[in-house]
């Protein structure tokens, strides 16, 4: 076991996959010589050369479009979008192209690409380095969308994404990059796409969360247990699309009380899908209204610290929502 943070775990997955499969290459802005603006790809160009850790022009549609072309000609590209906020120029290549190649060719052409996108609010990031854009992609058949939070799952999921024959969007919460370290296996392993993880078992309420707010939810769950004897079951979806409906529903049916939290703008976010699912499929087990917590419907996120802090559901808001649900 090695002790790694999220950023290092992602780096390790890339390095190991590039060593194991010579068709794997990374491309994007500043990923090569600089090793990425967050240093995720540091050292890869030294080891694999400028053709496999490839600096592209500053052109997101090109990055994803050329990744598609690489993939249909025998390569396994991992494209980095420097910040998720800059993914809109590549939107067409992702949603209209990568997602549909397989379907529209009746299974003749598939697109095994991975698109990494650092997302989420960070201090100093302001309106264009803070967004959680995952929902844009979570109603597009043909895409898979994953968003791990902890190093161990991130490493295994990134390997799965690279090996997957479909386009996979891989969202990395920037504020989680160096938040904590944990033991990460050194031997080769994968975490399957499409399976949620139960981080904490509990009987009283179900909380589903991902990204920074998952860490907060886990802290609050511990606190509620110690101070109030309330046992929250905390579930991380890991894959946001297609969702692991069974795990989410099983937990909701077990506890009868359901809360979904994310840092994205609340309207139309991925938590809405979970809420609809639980409301329809677990209705007879429910003892409280389905609840959601998210960011207000304002652009993410203001630069000044107090305004920024107000954007992301914090421990206090999460605690009061969990308490409200538990006491309902």
């Amino acid at each position: 076991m090695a002790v790694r943070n999220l950023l290092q775990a992602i780096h390790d997955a890339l390095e190991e996959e590039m060593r194991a499969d010579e068709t794997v290459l990374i491309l994007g802005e500043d990923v090569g010589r600089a090793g990425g603006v967050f240093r995720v790809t540091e050292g890869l160009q030294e080891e694999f050369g400028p053709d496999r850790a490839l600096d592209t022009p500053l052109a997101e549609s090109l990055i994803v479009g050329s990744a598609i072309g690489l993939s249909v000609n025998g390569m396994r590209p991992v494209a980095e979008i420097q910040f998720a906020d800059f993914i809109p120029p590549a939107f067409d290549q992702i949603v209209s192209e990568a997602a549909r190649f397989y379907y529209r060719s009746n299974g003749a052409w598939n697109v095994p690409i991975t698109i990494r996108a650092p997302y989420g609010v960070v201090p100093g990031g302001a309106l264009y380095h803070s967004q959680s854009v995952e929902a844009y992609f979570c109603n597009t058949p043909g895409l898979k969308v994953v968003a791990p939070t902890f190093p161990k799952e991130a490493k295994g999921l990134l390997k799965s994404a690279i090996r997957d024959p479909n386009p996979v969007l891989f969202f990395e919460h920037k504020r989680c990059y160096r938040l904590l370290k944990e033991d990460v296996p050194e031997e080769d392993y994968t975490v399957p796409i499409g399976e949620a993880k139960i981080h904490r078992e509990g009987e009283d309420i179900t909380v589903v969360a991902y990204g920074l707010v998952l860490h907060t939810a886990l802290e609050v769950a511990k606190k509620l247990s110690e101070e109030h004897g309330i046992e929250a079951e905390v579930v991380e979806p890991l894959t946001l699309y297609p969702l692991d409906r069974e795990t989410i529903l099983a937990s909701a049916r077990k506890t009868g009380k359901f809360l979904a939290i994310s840092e994205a703008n609340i309207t139309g976010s991925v938590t809405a899908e979970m809420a609809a699912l639980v409301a329809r499929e677990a209705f007879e087990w429910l003892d409280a209204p389905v609840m959601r917590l998210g960011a207000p419907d304002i652009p993410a996120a203001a630069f000044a610290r107090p305004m920024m802090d107000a954007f992301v559901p914090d421990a206090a808001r999460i605690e009061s929502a969990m308490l409200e649900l538990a006491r309902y």
Partner: protein
Amino acid sequence: MEKTRTRHEALGLDEGDLIRMYRAMLLARRTDERMWILNRQGRAAFVISCQGHEAAQVGAAYNMRPGYDYLYPYYRDFAMTTVLGQSARDHLLSLLGKKEDPNSAGRQMPGHFSSRELRIVTASAPVGVQYPQAVGSALAFKLRGEDGVVLVSGGEGSTSEGDWHEAMNFAGVRRLPVVFLVQNNAYAISVPEELQVAGSIAKRAEGYGFPGVAVDGNDVLAVYEVAKEAFGRARRGEGPTLIEAKTYRLTAHSSDDDDRRYREREEIERWRQKDPILRFERYLFEVGVLDEEKKEEISAQIKAEIDEAVEYAEAAPFAEPEEALERVYAEA
């Protein structure tokens, strides 16, 4: 006195090549014409057309090694895909959206070509998206040190899209083995070239650091010649070339379009005089590769092939409705 070498001999083409090129052009044209008839009879829902573009398409694609080089076509490339090996039957099955349609099994509109065997990469409807994909496939050839070439094509309207410029730039930066073929037919639906294109398309290549040539797109041998040079450069590792083939769309944009709203009949008539197929026929007669008898014979063969294709495609089954639910995700 020794006979001077003909144009095609100078290009390294023999009589067999000429006949194959001619057949592909004529087959595409006649198939296209039949598709319009089926549409006007209410038997085909939608037609988009290659009429007028046959020389540009066949001249360029005749340089490809089918099944090895990659083609990223656009929706007019019926003659291009014909040269690579798609048949009238393939086109008719696609027109009618039948299960056997090789492009998409009835999932896409006609004109959205695809064939894994022929390395025709599945085409989309949004204009211009194929260019970044094409340079990606060219990059893969280059990274592996293979001498494959990617041909990517589109209309002049597509050169207004950012994707075109992004791809041109990357191809130039990395000297990728890609040939950009712009089929400039003077209109993007109703918008004429002067409202679409600033300056010259061909000259833009210079700004991206590689050659750009404008060529008479109605002269199949002229297009073949510049494309041969472009493919040669690409295979030798010398990088991309842009070819602007100047041509004209003889039909409306599609079966849903009424081009009387935006262009004069006289203009079309003028271009009909320059029909690339008639022009090639004249050449073939001049060099003695074609005579009336041979022309009739080819024409009859093509008609029979299309008759058979229509009959076959009309009788062919649709995919079961439930098949629409399948093949969304590839299995490992």
